[in-house]
């Protein structure tokens, strides 16, 4: 009857967002008087796997079939469905991501599960099973009643702050039956910027818009991001102009992010841009136009020239 958490790996390490999901799942287990089991798919060493215990998992199922090394939503859904069946899990928790999204939908189809995406709080169990989620691209919230026997909660970043404890979870090998049908999509090549902080995972984000005037000026944005250990992001016009890759575009039709800090440089703050970032804890806006609408949604603002202000901020960060 345990709560099952799908914990995702990135280069053999449990992703930060998945640590949050494990902690969330362990809290739900506490509320429902059960235990929390993490299912981890792909190659990772035992000490990394058992570190799920630090966030509240009391057992780790590890599916290490060589065929599962490459992320594959369809095959991963088969694995997680089998794990849910073995554990008798009625609640499945995971952190939203590109892989998790592909996996979750297939899983919901397999288990006929009630699914809540973009969950932002622990469930309310006082009358059924109710969860709060972000809708209308962050412009509103919904309180969802999950009525199916199996429930899947896809949580948004910064839903809960994990507390670590000194514990390690026992790891069990998990070898469910996989079918050929799980591997009909073939991956030909992958282009991924390596070494950078992944934008959806980042706690701090430095973002820039057309105010930077051209892609050749992004050095100052990258310098500030580097000094802060932040990820870089951009507005839609910047990605449309090909100044920056589409994977950096935040907003209504790009990524929706919820970091601790979002610094917007030279972005006016159209409602479509705000939709993608308004769940950030703290928003800083730097713009030379004092009338830029973004200032109304900011916590801190500087009216000034980005080419002057950004390098000075970088210097100040380095001096901390």
């Amino acid at each position: 009857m345990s709560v099952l958490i799908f914990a995702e790996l990135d280069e053999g390490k449990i992703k930060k967002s998945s640590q949050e999901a494990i902690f969330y799942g362990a809290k739900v287990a506490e509320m429902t008087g059960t235990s929390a089991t993490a299912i981890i798919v792909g190659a990772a060493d035992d000490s990394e796997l058992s570190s799920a215990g630090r966030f509240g998992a009391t057992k780790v199922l590890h599916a290490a079939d060589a065929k599962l090394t490459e992320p594959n939503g369809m095959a991963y859904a088969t694995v997680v469905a089998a794990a849910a069946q073995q554990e008798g899990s009625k609640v499945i928790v995971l952190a939203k991501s590109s892989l998790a999204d592909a996996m979750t939908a297939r899983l919901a189809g397999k288990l006929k599960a009630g699914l809540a995406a973009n969950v932002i709080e622990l469930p309310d169990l006082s009358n059924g099973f109710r969860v709060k989620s972000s809708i209308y691209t962050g412009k509103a919230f919904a309180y969802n009643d999950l009525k199916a026997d199996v429930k899947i909660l896809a949580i948004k970043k910064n839903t809960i702050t994990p507390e670590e404890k000194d514990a390690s979870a026992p790891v069990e090998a998990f070898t469910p039956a996989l079918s050929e049908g799980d591997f009909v999509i073939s991956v030909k090549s992958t282009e991924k910027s390596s070494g950078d902080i992944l934008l959806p995972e980042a706690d701090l984000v430095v973002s820039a818009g057309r105010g930077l005037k051209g892609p050749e000026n992004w050095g100052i944005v990258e310098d500030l991001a580097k000094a802060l250990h932040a990820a870089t992001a951009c507005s839609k016009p910047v990605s449309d102009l090909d100044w920056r890759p589409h994977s950096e575009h935040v907003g209504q039709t790009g990524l929706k992010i919820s970091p601790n800090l979002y610094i917007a440089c030279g972005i006016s703050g159209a409602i479509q841009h705000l939709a993608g970032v308004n769940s950030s804890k703290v928003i800083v806006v730097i713009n030379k136009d004092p009338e830029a609408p973004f200032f109304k949604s900011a916590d801190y603002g500087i009216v000034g020239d980005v080419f002057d202000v950004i390098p000075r901020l970088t210097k100040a960060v380095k001096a901390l």
Partner: protein
Amino acid sequence: MKILVCVTSVPDTTTKIAFTDNNTKLNKAGVTFITGPYDDYALARAVELKEKTGASITVLNVGEADSEPVIRKCLAIGADDAIRVNAEPTDAYFVAEQIAAIAQKTNYDLILMGRESIDYNGGQVHGIVGEMLDIPSISPVMQLDLDGDTAKITREIEGGKESLEAKLPLVLGCQEPIAEWKIPNMRGIMTARTKPLTVVEPTGTDKLTTVASYELPAPRGAVKMIPADQAETLIQLLHTEAKII
């Protein structure tokens, strides 16, 4: 080649969201409804494929009567016929079930839709449909080319993209830059009026999730302005006041 394009009718991206009836319903007063922006990309790519290979395009909407203007616009852009499943599209499994039921009657080579609807943002319907029909699902798709019955696809992943290949039939969740949005021309608008739009009643399960109520975010506190010549103060405030760096 038969293509099914599933579209949503959603509030325009500039809408200021408000609720009514004790926060249980969207206040539709003054709201302009549009085709989901991601669905628009799916439709545009379908029309391009039709122009190239002579495909037929059916538009499918799970929605109430007030989504018909959006459906007519899709017909004006180049879809051949349309089906509306007469139901409120509020639960991903329920909506997927309606799409799968329609798809089971006709063998579509491609089922295209947006990566997510911009109202509930679940981004799950395509995957559930794929599971129900036992065919592959891929999202978010940025590029789609066909070589016989093989689809060559570029999908966005965190921090990059991957190139994939899979055999038809497929379900795809689409996003930019798969195609340029299309604007209906006068001839399209005229012919759309007489293209068939069939309304069917929903089938299958009760909804697995329902919304009890809605809520708007609490407004942010007042912005603290820092003079540009003291920009360094910002870093101090983020460190000592906001305590996030």
